[in-house]
């Protein structure tokens, strides 16, 4: 018998619990990505001589090197500098920073879609740069990019298993541990796949709802 239902049901609670870990990591990582990504986008947008170039270089670097090697590098490097973080925190930070590069590109397209006149009008009525961003530009730049940001949320979710390399016990790590104990890999790994499928379909649905909920007036679908 290749597929054992009894065994699959036995390990189900353990897998469900692990999927919560995966979900938590994704949400925290996405918070990091969404915030720092916005910072990179604004810094690059302002065209500050050295800073903007450094930010673009950082974004290019994060986007063109694998997450796995970034995780390894940070995980082994930080303790040498006397910074002791748990594997989960390290994982969340690196995952967040990796995807902040993608989010920065998304925000950039949002910022560029805001009409120049808005910016000029904000400056003309003597708003400071910070206030113009907060009150005028961002409220128009962010809502249109919620859907593409959401796509990265789902992409991040599917990339969390890479964190098992630095000993974070999430869904796939749990599946592999169960498999190592029992020498039955079929059920745990297939179940991990099913969990991912269900959760990412649910997340995609949630993102679509958010996109409709925060659609700008006059630009509704």
């Amino acid at each position: 018998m290749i597929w054992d239902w009894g065994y699959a049901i036995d390990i189900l609670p353990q897998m469900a619990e692990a999927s919560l870990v995966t979900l938590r990591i994704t949400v925290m990582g996405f918070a990091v990505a969404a915030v720092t990504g916005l910072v990179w986008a604004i810094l690059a947008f302002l065209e500050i001589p050295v800073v903007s170039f450094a930010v673009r270089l950082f974004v290019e670097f994060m986007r063109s090197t694998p997450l796995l090697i970034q995780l390894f590098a940070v995980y082994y490097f930080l303790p040498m500098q006397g910074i002791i973080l748990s594997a989960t925190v390290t994982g969340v930070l690196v995952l967040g920073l990796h995807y902040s590069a993608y989010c920065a590109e998304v925000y950039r397209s949002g910022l560029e879609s805001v009409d120049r006149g808005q910016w000029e009008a904000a400056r003309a009525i003597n708003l400071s740069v910070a206030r113009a961003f907060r009150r005028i530009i961002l409220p128009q730049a962010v809502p249109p990019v919620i859907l593409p940001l959401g796509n990265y949320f789902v992409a991040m979710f599917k990339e969390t298993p890479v964190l098992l390399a630095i000993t974070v016990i999430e869904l796939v790590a749990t599946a592999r541990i169960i498999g190592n104990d029992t020498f039955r890999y079929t059920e745990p790994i297939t179940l991990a796949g099913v969990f991912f499928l269900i959760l990412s379909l649910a997340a995609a649905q949630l993102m679509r709802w958010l996109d409709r909920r925060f659609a700008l007036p006059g630009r509704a679908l």
Partner: protein
Amino acid sequence: MSISALTAVLIATLALGLTYFHSTPFAANPEVFLGGAFVTLRILAASAVLTLAIAFAAGLGRLSPWRPLRWFCTAYVEVFRGTSALVQLFWLFYVLPLFGPTISPFTAGVLGVSLNVGAYAAVVVEASVRAVPRAQREAAIALNLSPFARMRRIILPQAIRMMIPPFGNLAIQLFKLTALVSFIGISDLTYTAYQLNQTTYRTVEVFTIILFMYFAIGLSITIGMKLLERRFARGVVRVNAR
């Protein structure tokens, strides 16, 4: 960044990387790193070819008038886009042998990476073919071209041009995914870094060198795809100059 800026960054990366490499204790044996890079590049090349084949097969399959084929291709795309790449890789490596076929880690790695990116690329192929104006297809029918000639001579040449920019992103995604094959014991660049770190404890040097190498390869891919994009845009009216 523009092509010239990227090229400048690539040259700077290579120069800095080589200078740094020669200042480390590894300067005497570059073959350790080059071996890892060679494995990564080999997996990348094999999966790029396979990914393209899968993308066109599944992408055109989704446009097929034959319903079972369309459903099969849609199921493939949804399953492989909806689950994690690492799950797919583990499934191929741990579970597939139980059903019979024993495949080498290299094959499993290439297959895992290609099936994953292939699903994303299939959607690109499908969307690009759909984006070719309807009139092109109707004109081809009016000229009495066979369905095959219509696709090959009229639709695909226009669709492929639209596929290149998203394929550029997918090429980088593919490249980054190749790092995952280290999980199933293939000694690519990432595996080399991990092992060297475990055996020499030269953490900073090892990871700096490997990151330089990955960045150089990644930049080369980005530049290559941008050049390809420019090549395919030749002779086409540019709507958006930027």
